[in-house]
């Protein structure tokens, strides 16, 4: 027997690739929803809206303070016991929900920091020409905050792609779940898991490349 069964790995690749779309879809849905929620939470924190601010702090504290796996189990196994209509919830929905809530808590804080970091003079200049708070946020502050927030947000996105692998614990056959099944059938655990590891790595490297291009484009206005 060879040390490494390369042929098996090459044969496994197309099988696993069929599950890649589901993994990416869960990550993309989680990222978009988490971004929207995080922006909302960040603005509540920046404007210190009474009542909502305290609720936001509690939300962030809970979802940053507990493991993602615990949250996923809570949504998938725990909540249906409490709320009957949730018996319909499937593993994919529960995963997207978990990823959204968990990562929005982290992202809200980095978005808040980026907004607060935009120089006060930018806000004053926008006010001085008669812009409303909404206009100056949308046209001046958020675009500048985006540039600062992109590197950390991309980090969370990368983390989120890898975190979709936890969906397999909810019975979802995504990339990790499929690998587990293949490995159990062939007993070539090392080959199977090193293959899937390389696939995750490849996706993340691709994203990192995209991130560098995006950062370069966003930084264009700041080159001297």
């Amino acid at each position, binding site marked *: 027997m060879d040390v490494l069964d390369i042929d098996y790995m090459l044969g496994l690749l197309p099988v696993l690739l069929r599950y890649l779309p589901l993994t990416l879809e869960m990550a993309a849905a989680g990222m978009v929803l988490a971004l929207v929620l995080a922006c909302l939470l960040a603005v509540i924190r920046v404007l210190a809206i009474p009542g909502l601010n305290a609720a936001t702090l509690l939300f962030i504290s809970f979802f940053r303070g507990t493991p993602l796996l615990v949250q996923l189990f809570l949504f998938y196994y725990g909540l249906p016991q409490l709320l009957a209509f949730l018996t319909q919830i499937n593993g994919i929905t529960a995963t997207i929900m978990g990823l959204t809530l968990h990562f929005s808590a982290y992202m809200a804080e980095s978005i808040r920091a980026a907004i607060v970091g935009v120089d006060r003079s930018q806000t004053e200049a926008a*006010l001085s*020409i008669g812009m409303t708070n909404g*206009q100056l946020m949308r046209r001046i502050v958020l675009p500048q905050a985006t540039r600062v927030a992109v590197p950390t947000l991309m980090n969370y996105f990368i983390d989120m792609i890898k975190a979709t692998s936890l969906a397999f614990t909810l019975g979802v056959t995504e990339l990790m779940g499929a690998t587990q099944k293949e490995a159990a059938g062939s007993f070539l655990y090392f080959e199977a898991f090193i293959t899937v590891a390389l696939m995750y790595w490849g996706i993340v490297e691709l994203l990192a490349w995209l991130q560098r291009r995006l950062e370069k484009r966003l930084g264009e206005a700041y080159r001297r």
Partner: protein
Amino acid sequence: MIKVQGLVKRFGAATVLDGIDLEIQQGEIIVVIGPSGTGKSTLLRCLNFLERPDAGWLQVGDLSVDVTQARKADILALRRRTAFVFQNYALFANKTALENIAEGLIVVNRWTKARAHARAREILERIGLADKADAYPASLSGGQQQRVGIGRAMAAQAEVILFDEPTSSLDPEWVEEVLSLMKQLARERQTMLVVTHEMGFARDVADRVIFMDGGRIVEQGVPSHVFTQPQDARTRDFLRKVLASQTSPVP
């Protein structure tokens, strides 16, 4: 016409503006001088509501506001009638020179992008930066940035442009080009209220010089009068100190 009555601004226990009364005619160029920390900048910022005054009346054009009663709509209307030039330029860092000038026209005046950009190009021409239309602030010199800042204020077509020490942050080599643009605006009878330490500009360009100290207007008049026959001891003291340090002495 602009009318300020009994304007008061406090920061905590400190009264920074202590009852300012001021009238500015259309086309008038007024320079405000005085020691640091006497409320000159605060006066400008209150006129633009970047600071909320604690008492007084403001009238700009057809808009008259009791500052204690000012609502959001009043504040926006007031800001649209007053343009501001900042000491640190405060250009929008994510926008080109052209976009900086066009931004208010698009967002506040609801012009189409094409119309706003056409106007912005005209203004760039007038401020001598037509070739820098697509340059971002970070790539412009201090003098160029401040000229774009003035261009942005020109675009607003406000009743008055408020200049808050427009040359104080500039390296000496850039001061002249900014002052000369301001002189050009003065010749076109753009109403201006200028806080500056450039005594030469005050003497050559101002219709009226106002000396402020301790949050009050101590003395005002035509430059030749204020500079040569200051009535108040504080004005004399201030002018002696300032003129001694500036290169071109007042005759």
